[in-house]
C-alpha cells in the first residue's frame, strides 16, 4: 500500500511539473542570445509573405536572408511568417508584452502611430543619412516619419490605376476615358449591355475607399482630403460631399458587380479575372497577375491595359495625381538586444529588395530603380513611367487616419455604397470622428 501511495504521489507531482514545464516552454524562448558580446547573433524577423499566398515575395525574403547569412556567418535570422490579418493581431499582442521581433513590418502613418508613441520602434535616421542616402524614391520615407524622425523604411511603392479589359472595351467600341463624363458613358454602355462595368469587393472596405479618394482628388484637388484629415480643413467641404454623391450615383447606375458589399476583394476581383467585369481599380501590387504570373492565362494577361482616373469637368484635380503610397516598411524594435545588427540587416534588406522586386516579383520597390539592366513587361514599364510623371501621390485614406477614425471611414464607405447613409451624413460622421480624435 505504501509503495502504491508513493507511486500515486510521484505521478501526481510529475503531472503537475509537466504542466508547468510545458507552460514555460512557450514563453521562455526569448532569452538573451548574447548580442552584446558581438559573436553569435540571432535576429528575429517577422513578415507577412507566406510561401502559399505570396510565393514570389517569400522566395525573395529567403534569398536575401541566405545572402546575408553567407556574408555574415555569425548572424542567424529567424523568420516568423503570418498572414496579413494574423500579422496585425500578433503585432498587437507582442507589443503589449514588449516582445516585438527585432525586425518586423509595419504600415505607414496612422497604423504605426501607436507604436511610435509607445516608443516601440527605433528611429532609423542614421541609416537614411548614411548608406541609404538618396536611395529611396522621393516622398516614400516621409510616410513613416513622426516628429522629424523616420521609424521604418519602405520596401514597396504602389499607385492605383484602373485596369481594364481591352477585349470587352473593343466589343462595345469603347476607348479609355479622358474625362469623368466619358467614364460614366462607358459605365452606362456596359451596364445596359448586361456587362458588369466595375469589379469591386467592398467587404474589405478600403477597396471602395479608393474610388472615393480619386473622386475627392479630382473634384477638390489633392489638398482637400489631406487637409480634412490633418484638421487644417474640414470634411464638410462641398467637394467631399460631391464626391460622396458621385459614388451613390455610380451605385445607382449599377456600375459595380452585384452584392459587392458582401464580397471580399478577392471575390470581387474574380469577376474581373473571369472577364465578367470590364474594369478593376487596384494597386500596382496586382501587376504580376497581368504580366508575369504563370497561373493566369496568357490570353487574359494580354487583354489588360490601364488608364489614369479621368479628370472631372470643373474639378481642381490633375490627371497625374495618384492615390497610392508606400506599402509595408521594415522597423527595428526599440527593445531589441541586437539593435545595431538589426539595423544593418534592414539596410541590406531594403537595398536587395529593390533589385529582386523588379526582376522577380514584378512589383515596384520604394528604392530607385535602374530599369535599363533588366527586361521588363511593357505594362510594368508604362506604370513606372507614370509614377515618374506623378504630380502627387495621396496616401490611402485609412492609412492617413488614426485607427479609430479609419474604422469610421471604412464603415462609412460601406454604408455609402450600400446607400445606408446620405452623402451629407457621410461627411458629418467623418468630421465628428476626426474632431473627437484630435481633441483627445
Amino acid at each position: 500500500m505504501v509503495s502504491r501511495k508513493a507511486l500515486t504521489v510521484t505521478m501526481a507531482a510529475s503531472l503537475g511539473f509537466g504542466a508547468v514545464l510545458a507552460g514555460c516552454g512557450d514563453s521562455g524562448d526569448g532569452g538573451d542570445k548574447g548580442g552584446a558580446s558581438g559573436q553569435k547573433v540571432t535576429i528575429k524577423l517577422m513578415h507577412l509573405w507566406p510561401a502559399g499566398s505570396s510565393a514570389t515575395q517569400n522566395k525573395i525574403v529567403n534569398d536575401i536572408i541566405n545572402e546575408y547569412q553567407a556574408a555574415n556567418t555569425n548572424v542567424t535570422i529567424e523568420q516568423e511568417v503570418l498572414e496579413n490579418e494574423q500579422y496585425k493581431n500578433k503585432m498587437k499582442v507582442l507589443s503589449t508584452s514588449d516582445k516585438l521581433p527585432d525586425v518586423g513590418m509595419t504600415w505607414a502613418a496612422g497604423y504605426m502611430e501607436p507604436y511610435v508613441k509607445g516608443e516601440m520602434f527605433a528611429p532609423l535616421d542614421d541609416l537614411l543619412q548614411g548608406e541609404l542616402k538618396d536611395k529611396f524614391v522621393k516622398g516614400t520615407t516621409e510616410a513613416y516619419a513622426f516628429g522629424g524622425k523616420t521609424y521604418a523604411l519602405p520596401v514597396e511603392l504602389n499607385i492605383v490605376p484602373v485596369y481594364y479589359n481591352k477585349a470587352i472595351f473593343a466589343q462595345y467600341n469603347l476607348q479609355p476615358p479622358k474625362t469623368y463624363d466619358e467614364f460614366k458613358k462607358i459605365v452606362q454602355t456596359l451596364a445596359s449591355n448586361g456587362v458588369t462595368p466595375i469589379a469591386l469587393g467592398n467587404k474589405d472596405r478600403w477597396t471602395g475607399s479608393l474610388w472615393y479618394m480619386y473622386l475627392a482628388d479630382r473634384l477638390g484637388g489633392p489638398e482637400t482630403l489631406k487637409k480634412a484629415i490633418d484638421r487644417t480643413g474640414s470634411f464638410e467641404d462641398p467637394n467631399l460631399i460631391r464626391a460622396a454623391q458621385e459614388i451613390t450615383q455610380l451605385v445607382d447606375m449599377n456600375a459595380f458587380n452585384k452584392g459587392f458589399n458582401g464580397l471580399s476583394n478577392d471575390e470581387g476581383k474574380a469577376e474581373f479575372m473571369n472577364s465578367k467585369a470590364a474594369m478593376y481599380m487596384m494597386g500596382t501590387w496586382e501587376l504580376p497577375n497581368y504580366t508575369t504570373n504563370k497561373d493566369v492565362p496568357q490570353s487574359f494577361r494580354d487583354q489588360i491595359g490601364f488608364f489614369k482616373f479621368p479628370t472631372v469637368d470643373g474639378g481642381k484635380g490633375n490627371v497625374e495625381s495618384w492615390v497610392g503610397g508606400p506599402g509595408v516598411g521594415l522597423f527595428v524594435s526599440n527593445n531589441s538586444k541586437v539593435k545595431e545588427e538589426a539595423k544593418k540587416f534592414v539596410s541590406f534588406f531594403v537595398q536587395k529588395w529593390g533589385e529582386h522586386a523588379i526582376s522577380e516579383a514584378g512589383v515596384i520597390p520604394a528604392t530607385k530603380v535602374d530599369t535599363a539592366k533588366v527586361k521588363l513587361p511593357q505594362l510594368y514599364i508604362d506604370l513606372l513611367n507614370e509614377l515618374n510623371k506623378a504630380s502627387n501621390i495621396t496616401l490611402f485614406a485609412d492609412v492617413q487616419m488614426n485607427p479609430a477614425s479609419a474604422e469610421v471611414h471604412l464603415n462609412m464607405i460601406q454604408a455609402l455604397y450600400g446607400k445606408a447613409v446620405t452623402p451629407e451624413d457621410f461627411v458629418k460622421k467623418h468630421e465628428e470622428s476626426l474632431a473627437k480624435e484630435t481633441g483627445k
Partner: protein
Amino acid sequence: MDKVMSNKTVIALFVWPSLLLLVVLIYMPIVLTGYYGLMDWDGVGGMAFIGLANYKELLRDGLFWNSVKHSFLLAVFSTVSLLVYLLVALVLSARIRGANVFRKIYLIPMLLSSVAIAQLWLKIFHPTNGILNDALARLGVQDTPEWLSNPSIVLYAIFIPILWQYAGFYILIYYAALKNVPADLIEAARIDGAGPWRVAVSIRIPLIAEVIKVTVVLAIVGSLKYFDLIYVMTGGGPNGASEVMASYMYRKAFREYDFGYASAVGFCLLLICLIMTWLIRKATAAKDNVQYS
C-alpha cells in the same frame, strides 16, 4: 485505491495543477479584463486610469447596443430552434428506417471547423454564382437577394449556417438523453393506450427536462458570445448590420486600438452571460424534477 483517493495530501496534489491552470488561464484574465476596462489604453503604450469612463461611454454607444440586440436575437433564434432539434431527436429515437444515417448527416456540420463552414456558406450565398441565388433564378425570381450585403437581411442569412452548425450537437444530446428514458415506462404508457405524441409529451420530454435545461443555457450563452463564423463571413458588416457583442469587442481592440474600451465590452459580455445563466436557472429551478419511479 479508495484510501489513496481520500487522502487529503493526494487530493491536493492531484487538484493543484488544474487549479493553477484554471486560475491563471480563466480567472486571472477575467479580473485583468475588468481592470483594463478602467483604463484608457491603446494596447501598445502606457495605460491611464480613467475610472468608469469606458463603461459610461458604453451605455451611450449605439453601436454597442446594436450588437447586444443582434446577440440576443441570435439567442432567441437558437432557443427556438432547440424545439426543432428536440423534435428531430424524438423522431430519430423512435425506430424509424434510416435513423442511423440521418443521425450521421445531422452530425456532419459539427465535424467541420467554423471557418470551413463559413467558406462553404459564402459560396452558397454568393450573389451571382451561389447555388442559392442560382436556384432562385431558375425558379423565376427576377431580383435575387444579396444575402450578405443587404443590411436588412444579412443578420438572418448568417443565422442559418450558425443554427445548421449546431444542429447535430443538440440533436445528439437529446438523442442520447431520450435513449436513457427507461423502456418499461414507455411500454406501460403504450399499453394504457397512449399514442407516440402523448408518450413524448407526458413521459419522454419531462424525463429529459434536466438535459433540456442545460441545452437552453448552452444555446443562450453560446449565442451571446458567438464570434467565429460571423467574423469570417461578414466581419460584422455591412456597416455593423451583423455585428454581435464579441465581434464588436474584437473590432474595438484590434481595429480601433482601444483595448480599454474593448475590455469594458468584454466584461459586460461576461456579466450579461452570467445574468442570463442565473435567470434561466432561476426560471427553471422552481419546478420539481420528474424522477424515474
